[in-house]
């Protein structure tokens, strides 16, 4: 079995990203190649305070705190994106086109993605799979420590799903709303 062995069609995209991403819709599968920048809570705070240490135009941010050993990526699955909900606006304003992580982001972020950027979901916990698609090329803010530094990574055909598209489509909230309806219906059945 190959990585991302699904029945769906994959669209290949490459950084720096442009308007091609605007055509993608929540639920679409993509293979991403190019440069991505890891960033978690601390890196976001530092970038807000100082300045973004890389060219943000068309860039992809990866919510990830990897395990690095001897300049090699050992494990690099996604972290929970929701922690960055309130820390993301300035990146999109600076031209970032794509956020990658797990679990989705708030309605607020969904709104600010409109017309310019997308959120891609990477399978949580798939650190070994991620590592086999990645090569480490640089680092910013190494003083923040292994999990919180910004690691510059070259990726090849990383299998991702569009979680939130640039026209307001949000797979996470769609699934969540349906789950709540089904829960309410189940509770009503229990009481009966």
């Amino acid at each position, binding site marked *: *079995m*190959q*990585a*991302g*062995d*699904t*029945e*769906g069609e994959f669209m290949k995209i490459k950084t720096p990203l442009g308007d091609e991403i605007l055509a993608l819709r929540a*639920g679409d*599968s993509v293979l991403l190649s190019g440069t991505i920048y890891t960033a978690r809570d601390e890196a976001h705070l530092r970038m807000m305070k100082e300045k973004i240490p890389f060219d943000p135009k068309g860039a992809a941010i990866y919510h*990830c*705190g*990897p*395990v690095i*050993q001897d300049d090699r990526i*050992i*494990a*690099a*699955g996604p*972290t*929970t994106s*929701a922690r960055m909900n309130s820390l993301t606006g300035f990146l999109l304003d600076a031209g970032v086109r794509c956020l990658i992580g*797990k*679990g*989705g982001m708030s309605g607020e972020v969904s709104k600010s993605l409109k017309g310019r950027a997308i959120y891609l*979901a990477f*399978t*949580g*916990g*798939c*650190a*070994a*799979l*991620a*590592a*086999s698609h990645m090569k480490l090329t640089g680092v910013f803010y190494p003083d923040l*420590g*292994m*999990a919180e530094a910004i690691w510059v990574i070259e990726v090849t055909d990383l*299998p991702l*799903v569009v*979680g939130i598209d640039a026209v307001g489509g949000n*797979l*996470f909230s*769609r*699934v*969540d709303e*349906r*789950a*709540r309806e*089904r*829960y309410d219906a*189940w*509770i009503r059945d*229990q009481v009966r």
Partner: protein
Amino acid sequence: MNAREEQMLRKAVSDATLACIHEAEVFLPPDVKAAIAAAYDSEADPVARGELANIRTNISEAERLNLPLCQDTGIAVIYMTVPHCYPVHEADLREAVYDGVRRATLSVPLRPNAVDPVSRQNSGDNTGVAIPPIHIREGSDLTITVLPKGAGSENVSRIGMLLPSQGNEIPAFIVETVLLAGGRPCPPVVVGVGIGGTFDHAAALAKEALLLPIDVMDTYEMEICTAINNLGIGPMGLGGSTTALAVKVKKAHCHTASLPVAVNIQCWACRRATRKVSL
């Protein structure tokens, strides 16, 4: 036991801890792999199938590359059984386990995850004040079990102090916990449930339930698991019929005026390993 034998034993405990952590971080237990394979076979949703395919590829890549399954290598929760009248002091056993955790941090390697709760200062070696937690009880052999627990699923766990009259609302509390968690704990999850005991014991039972084999469930567990899967949250919260691989329940007697229910959520990487320590 003389000083030399004691030193050998400490080394054996440290070695067993290291071996358990390595095995748990790289190789998923057969019952968990089988549950994920069964979920892939029965899943109809294309996005969900893609997620489960990624998980299965990840499992085989971790084994092939001898690397941790997930970059959140967790906090090592340790369970030990110690024979009656064992000639080594508990404090020495604990120190030997700590030594094994420090060695594993360098050799597996593990991400340094242990921080001071307020200053967030990282200890750098996955040990610290009361970390890793070590649960010791009596058993016929000296054994070590490691359950590396990641934060994504730990953070959506819940405890409820239900009323004694709310016994039939326990399933709803469990299902609601999974609903509120959504995609955040990296579903498909394993749901560990502790019913009864005291406030703290219920949580301990819920975590211990995660050590039980997940290829068997009783009727009560099965009904709750079905209700969870009917929510359609699916792998990673992207939709599908696989939200939980299993629900496992452990019970203890409790005060006649209380009904504690703890739900400890575990991501699909239900990591655990056990070693017998012998000299």
